[in-house]
């Protein structure tokens, strides 16, 4: 065959190209690179492990609470300890576990699913991880110090102002969440830009995997919702520390401001937590039904719609505060309408299961667990929408039961499904199916045993956030059941951890595509090489791995402009249609993100302990590091193109 035709038709990268790719992307295993890595796969795994550890802490808090509540009048925890435990449990589950865990999946998966070699801003990504780690430690360290937040996870003023709660408790809360917010925000920016600009050529918006849509929509919600929470926390910190008067009625402030700002954030946050989890379901479920997801355009619509409408629902959390009824009228439309897109996704999954051939694997079991629990949570949610019922059950265990069905069902089950589904890709090892099935049944049964009885005790009038209760009100058996359930869940979750360690130690090597998945991460090796794809694919359909033409584009159809072996390079494409634009240079490993995060830690520790000079030094460190980090790389004069 004449060589010109071969060049025109393209060809696989040769051995030199592969060697060059490895040279530019691989990181020598050393302490330096461990602290300096910018590889999204390593960072993603770190997010997952760190968030899992924080989940463990929060779970241990829950088990301690349930032990205290097993019977009436128990004395294992004091009221002060109980307050700190439930607050840290709730705060950590929401802020330090759910979102970072799902961002961990996003970090690992988004570049792989869209056919890129890294995130758009790899160093920012590393920075985000370090900030998350430090913020989490900052908050958890307050528990052994006896200064943990104690005002509930939504920290209502005036309970949380300086007069009612002196001490560092709430300062840990406000500063910790502000600190963490930096990480979440930078992660969100990174996801959006990555998904907009680094998709493989040919991946127009109608070929973007649902999981990526979900992560991007979540990120947009984060960018709009989180600043409001940050502002709220900043104002509370100022009120507590520097005697400003934002929430102080005697000086013209208003306590309702806290609630408004908090729930402008808080309502979308429920979807910020659940949406990427639903994205995991949409990625896992169709693969085990052996067909593409039914109603892809409608699922995309539902994701976009939820992201937008969720902002209109915040007033619903304030039924007890006495706004004009008409004001509610404008927003209750949103609360009703938002159920339509949510329901749509469920029907799309059911339809996919109906028309597909189901394979009951471990990830699929967890998906089913999700569907069952989430639907129960939805039903009790509809019960809330009936206002009268809402006012009766506000602040009882019925609420606790409801939101655990939504959050455990909506976040934990999909996350566990994702853990089993992508474990082979992340570690290169298969897990033990038997352990996995045991884990599923323990978690599923335990979860229902824990939270179903809470509906009953709630209807019997048991208030939430009590450290103990008198016997003889009919609550005792339900509480005992819930406590037993909590231990069963804990056993199940431990078994998940055992399964992961077992896979790492003993697991059989994983093939590239153990499940017959459709998206691009299954086209590359398990675990992927540092550069992800030897050839950046050209995408021809929504299911690239099931589509021979896309597969060919990375084999015999490879072209030089998608191999890009000369340098550390990935591809920029256009936002909507994914048209080829140009190759872009990616940064190499660096420890500056870590240094900047340390600077931020100094800032927040300094503010917390009122060592303001430490805070100032930290700020100087951050500024200096950023200046050096962004310093433009040296160029040759021709490259610089200077005229004078």
């Amino acid at each position, binding site marked *: 065959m004449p060589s010109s035709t071969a060049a025109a038709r393209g060809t696989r990268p040769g051995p030199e190209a592969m060697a060059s790719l490895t040279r530019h992307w691989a990181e020598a295993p050393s302490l330096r690179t461990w602290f300096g890595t910018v590889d999204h796969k390593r960072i993603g795994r770190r997010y997952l492990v760190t968030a899992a550890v924080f989940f463990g802490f929060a779970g241990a808090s829950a088990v301690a609470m349930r032990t205290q509540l097993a019977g009436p009048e128990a004395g294992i925890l004091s009221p002060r300890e109980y307050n700190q435990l439930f607050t840290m449990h709730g705060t950590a589950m929401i802020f330090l576990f759910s979102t970072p865990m799902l961002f961990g999946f996003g970090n690992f998966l988004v570049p792989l699913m869209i056919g890129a070699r890294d995130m758009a801003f790899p160093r920012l990504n590393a920075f985000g991880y370090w900030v998350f780690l430090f913020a989490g430690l900052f908050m958890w360290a307050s528990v052994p110090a006896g200064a943990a937040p104690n005002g509930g996870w939504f920290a209502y003023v005036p309970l949380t102002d300086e007069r009612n709660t002196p001490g560092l408790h709430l300062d840990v809360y406000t500063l910790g969440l502000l600190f963490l917010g930096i990480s979440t925000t930078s992660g969100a920016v990174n996801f959006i830009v990555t998904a907009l*600009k680094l998709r493989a050529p040919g991946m127009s918006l109608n070929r973007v995997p649902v999981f990526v849509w979900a992560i991007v929509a979540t990120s947009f919600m984060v960018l709009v919702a989180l600043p409001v929470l940050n502002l709220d926390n900043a*104002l509370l910190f100022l009120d507590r520390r520097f005697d*400003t*008067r934002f929430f102080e009625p005697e000086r013209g402030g*208003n306590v309702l401001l806290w609630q408004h700002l908090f729930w402008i954030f808080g309502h979308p946050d429920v979807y910020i937590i659940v949406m990427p989890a639903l994205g995991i379901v949409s990625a896992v479920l169709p693969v085990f039904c052996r067909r593409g997801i039914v109603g892809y355009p409608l699922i995309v619509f539902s994701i976009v719609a939820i992201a937008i409408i969720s902002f209109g629902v915040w007033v619903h959390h304030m039924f007890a505060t006495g706004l004009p009824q008409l004001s509610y009228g404008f927003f209750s439309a949103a609360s009703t309408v938002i159920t339509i897109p949510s329901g749509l996704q469920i029907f799309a999954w059911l339809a996919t299961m109906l028309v597909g051939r189901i394979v009951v694997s471990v990830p699929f079991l967890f998906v089913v667990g999700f569907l069952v629990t989430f639907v129960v949570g939805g039903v009790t949610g509809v019960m809330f929408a009936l206002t009268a019922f809402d006012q009766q059950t506000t602040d009882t265990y019925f609420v606790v039961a409801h939101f655990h069905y939504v959050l455990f069902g909506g976040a934990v089950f999909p996350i566990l499904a994702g853990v089993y589904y992508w474990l082979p890709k992340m570690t290169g090892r298969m897990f033990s199916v038997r352990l996995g099935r045991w884990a599923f049944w323990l978690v599923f049964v335990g979860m229902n045993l824990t939270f179903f009885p809470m509906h009953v005790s709630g209807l019997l009038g048991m208030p939430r956030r009590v450290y103990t209760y008198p016997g003889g009100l009919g609550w005792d058996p339900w509480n005992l059941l819930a406590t037993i359930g909590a231990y069963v869940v804990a056993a199940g979750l431990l078994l998940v951890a055992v399964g992961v360690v077992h896979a790492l130690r003993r697991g059989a090597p994983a093939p590239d595509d153990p499940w017959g998945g459709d998206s691009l991460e299954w086209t590359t090796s398990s675990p992927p090489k540092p550069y992800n794809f030897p050839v950046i694919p050209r995408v021809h359909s929504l299911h690239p791995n099931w589509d021979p033409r896309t597969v060919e584009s990375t084999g015999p159809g490879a072209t030089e402009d998608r191999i890009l072996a000369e340098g550390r390079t990935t591809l*920029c494409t256009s936002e909507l249609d994914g048209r080829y634009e140009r190759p872009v240079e990616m940064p190499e490993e660096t420890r500056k993100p870590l240094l900047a995060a340390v600077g931020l830690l100094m800032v927040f520790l300094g503010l917390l302990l009122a060592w303001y000079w430490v805070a100032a030094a930290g700020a100087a460190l951050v500024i200096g590091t950023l200046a050096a980090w962004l310093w433009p790389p040296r160029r040759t004069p021709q490259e610089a193109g200077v*005229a004078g």
Partner: protein
Amino acid sequence: MTPADLRTALRPAGLVTEQPVGRSTAWWGVMLFIATEGTVFAALLGSYFYLRFQHGVPWPPDGIAQPDLRLPLVMTAVLVPSSLPVAWAEAGIRRGRRWQVRAGLLATLVMGGTFLGLQGMEYHENLREYTVTTNVYGSLFYVITTFHGAHVTVGLFMVCWLLAAAGRGGVSARRPEPVRVVAYYWHFVDAVWVAILFTVYLSPRL
């Protein structure tokens, strides 16, 4: 735009064109950053109005006088036009004229610095009458303006950084991105000031 244009635009060929198109990752990054920062300011100014209307009349409370407009208007006259030299510098980098970049940035630096100095003078005046702890009005006034002043300061740091980087040849016609990013940020800080001028200084008189 003619009706014919509209008709073509509504044909499939018009609807499927990808427009606007071709932004860089840096452009998207800074825009999203500005979007979330803008949300912070929107929430802050929204809180101003919320607290004000929940408070009722008189506003400002406790016998505090209406904000004096003279100094703020001078500050506006200094800060808002400072977007022009940045824009000029950005135009310069695209043609590779490094002197133009430097001159534009220097002018911005001077104007931004002047703004901060004037703000200091204003605080000096106001602090005699009320402080951040006096009442909710004082808290709002000082927190909003200080938060904005901090953004101006960050912007000035960025300008200094750019002056240093441009002096060393790291920024060029091929890599205009840093100048562009700083320019966007500076325009944003200016625009926020206009919103603050309206909220804090003008709206109490409405």
